[in-house]
């Protein structure tokens, strides 16, 4: 391997934050591809532009996605990067690993690829960064034997993702890890064989803190919640007060619905249960004293996406409360997803996310055609204009004769 200078990138080995340049250099000791990656990147830093050509279509037998084709723009100068494809491997729920599994990932990647990875891609996948076309199938075969599968890419269900949930969080209102695992397995076909107008993502968050950012980063955001009243442990409230914690100022005053009252004389905290919007603020501030209610489930919101094309959308409420029950195999949720995907598949234009389709066609039509009952929880406020569509067939035409 020829030693070439990288003065600009070397600057980024200084400082306290762990350096990606040092990481590429470590891989460069093993593979020519990583060594050349360093050279191309140095050149990008000098020229202030990328050097990757438009993606190509590569993949494995039996699937329509999971691999992102990539080619350097000067293959003669950088032969080891002439093909430098990314493979997406579906991560375990909650990113839980043991070292045996991680070492398997490394050993197989050492055998076939550049030695560089992303842990993890924004959607959740383990990203294996850089391999040749001829290695793609053998890589998949080896990882498959070791118990891994590819993640999604293209116009399909993308890899699902979840927060840490009941694995390590007292706020989790449903089993996000199991939901993610079970539901991903249910929709393997939709994930591996793109057949929709565009991509579709599901993210599972155990509560409205939304640690996966599902409301902004998934077409379907499954956000844990409860239906009864939050539970307050008055002894623990008194302990917070005794420690000098400002319950009135930092908790009650910040409650968005002002449904919390702290009685400084009795040192008791009370809530008007039906006014609470379950925003999580008071629970976050006093986790030892305040707990979610007992009747738990999730709110299902649809439509979240980034800017392209119609502006960024946050998901909005479609089902205010749904049980997320591992016992019945998440049947209600799966049935719901099938219905809305089927509708989108019928109505969506090419490269139109489901949020944009609903927006274009109208919530009214979407709800009627998917047989979802409209409820006030779906809107911040009702419409201000009077331009309402009526179904003409429903009108009482007898009035015409009066």
């Amino acid at each position, binding site marked *: 391997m020829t030693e070439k200078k990288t003065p600009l990138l070397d*600057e980024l080995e200084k400082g306290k*934050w762990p350096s990606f340049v040092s990481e590429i250099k470590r891989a460069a000791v093993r593979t020519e591809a990583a060594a050349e990656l360093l050279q191309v990147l140095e050149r990008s830093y000098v*020229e202030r532009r*990328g050097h990757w050509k*438009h993606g190509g279509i590569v993949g494995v037998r039996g699937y329509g996605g999971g691999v992102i084709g990539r080619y350097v723009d000067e293959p003669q100068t950088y032969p080891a990067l002439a093909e430098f494809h990314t493979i997406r491997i579906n991560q375990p729920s*909650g990113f839980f690993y043991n070292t045996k599994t991680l070492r398997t990932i490394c050993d197989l990647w050492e055998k076939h690829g550049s030695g560089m990875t992303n842990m993890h891609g924004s959607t959740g996948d383990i990203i294996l960064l850089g391999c040749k076309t001829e290695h793609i199938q053998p890589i998949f075969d080896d990882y498959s034997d070791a118990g891994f599968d590819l993640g999604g890419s293209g116009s399909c269900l993308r890899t699902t993702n979840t927060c840490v949930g009941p694995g390590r969080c007292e706020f989790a209102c449903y089993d996000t890890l199991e939901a993610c695992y079970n539901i991903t397995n249910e929709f393997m076909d939709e994930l591996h064989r793109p057949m929709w107008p565009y991509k579709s993502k599901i993210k599972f968050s155990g509560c409205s803190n939304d640690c996966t950012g599902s409301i902004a980063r998934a077409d379907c955001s499954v956000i844990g919640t409860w239906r009864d009243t939050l539970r307050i442990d008055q002894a623990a409230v008194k302990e917070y007060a005794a420690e000098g914690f400002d319950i009135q100022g930092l908790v009650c005053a910040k409650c968005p619905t002002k449904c919390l009252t702290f009685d400084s004389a009795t040192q008791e905290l009370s809530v008007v249960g039906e006014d609470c919007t379950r925003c999580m603020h008071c629970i976050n501030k006093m986790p030892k004293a305040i707990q979610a209610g007992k009747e738990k489930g999730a709110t299902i919101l649809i439509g979240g996406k980034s800017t392209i*094309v119609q502006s960024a959308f*946050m998901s909005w409420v479609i089902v205010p409360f749904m049980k997320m029950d591992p016992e019945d195999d998440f049947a209600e949720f799966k049935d719901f997803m099938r219905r809305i995907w089927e509708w989108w598949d019928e109505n969506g234009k090419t490269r139109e996310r489901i949020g944009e389709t609903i927006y274009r066609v109208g919530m009214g039509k979407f709800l009627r055609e998917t047989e979802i009952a409209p409820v006030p929880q779906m809107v911040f406020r009702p419409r201000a204009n009077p331009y309402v569509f009526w179904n003409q067939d429903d009108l009482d035409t007898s009035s015409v004769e009066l």
Partner: protein
Amino acid sequence: MAKLDQGPPNYKEMLPPIIKENYGKWKYHEIPRSGVLKHVSESGAALYSVRVGTPRLVSIDFIRDVCELADKHTDGFLRWTTRNNIEFLVSEEAKVQPLIDELDAKGYAVGGTGAAISNIIHTQGWVHCHTPATDASGVVKAVMDDLYEYFNSMKLPAKLKMGLACCLNMCGSTHCSDIGIVGVHRTPPRIDHEKIRKGTEIPSLVASCPTGAIRPDPKNKSVIVNNDKCMYCGNCYTMSPAMEIYDAKNDGIAILIGGKVSNARSAPSFSRMVIPFLPNNAPRWPETTEAIRKIIELWIANAQKGERIGEWVERIGWEKFFTMAELPFSDMLIDDYIFSRETFRTSAAFKY
């Protein structure tokens, strides 16, 4: 033969015993120090998670190093977070300090908990993408080096989450972060008519433009771009390799602030542009790091306890923010896209 449709590995097989035993039975948590979470279950068992920053783009050597640490200190159990940090899962309190000592000695970044800056969610940049207007890893490294003191301490008014996207596709979380860093172009695409004739599906290309700036040119079997309508989003290049848009001199970074996804107190919100352009000054992007530090320091000095950046700015008013931040306000910051009207001030109440 590879097995098809077997799905991800089963997470249950990789949970440490303490998590299996206390699954769904966690009672409360504390943050005993920066970088350490203590979760206590109903049974009284305590799990300590030691959080370490990563550059996300890592070699297999890094993963193997981390495995060695996990074998030595945590019986081989660890996880990644949704912000690409690593958490070592320690089941005994006595094992926490020795792990931290070794992490410190080896130069790992322990932190990212509570009212801190956690890892920056970011993208491919010049390392692997064909549409970027800036690099991802380099900018993130520069910003995190500069703000490191807020990663390994908990002295901010509230959490601060940052996202970086290297182009307007805005992969990741830039659109909903306290601070979003976005790669932007400022010049229209250059059409390679030869390439279009060779294999671009013209109707899809025309349809990909959000502003309708592209129309077919049947005579030439190509397309025409109305430069006055183009706002350089690069979506046409995503559709066709014939629409190259990178421009070394004019590409750079825009800064957005005030987004959040959690529902605590206020509704989730988008981040809003406050700086339309900063240059791609590799390798350290000093204009970007300086602008971000200035905004963060202003927030620290002025926010109430517990106020995220967006909540603080909404309370004082954006007009006041621009005055305090000494940031120039230009028409570029006034929305002129599809949903713009709701961002105009339809009220006579404002500050001078």
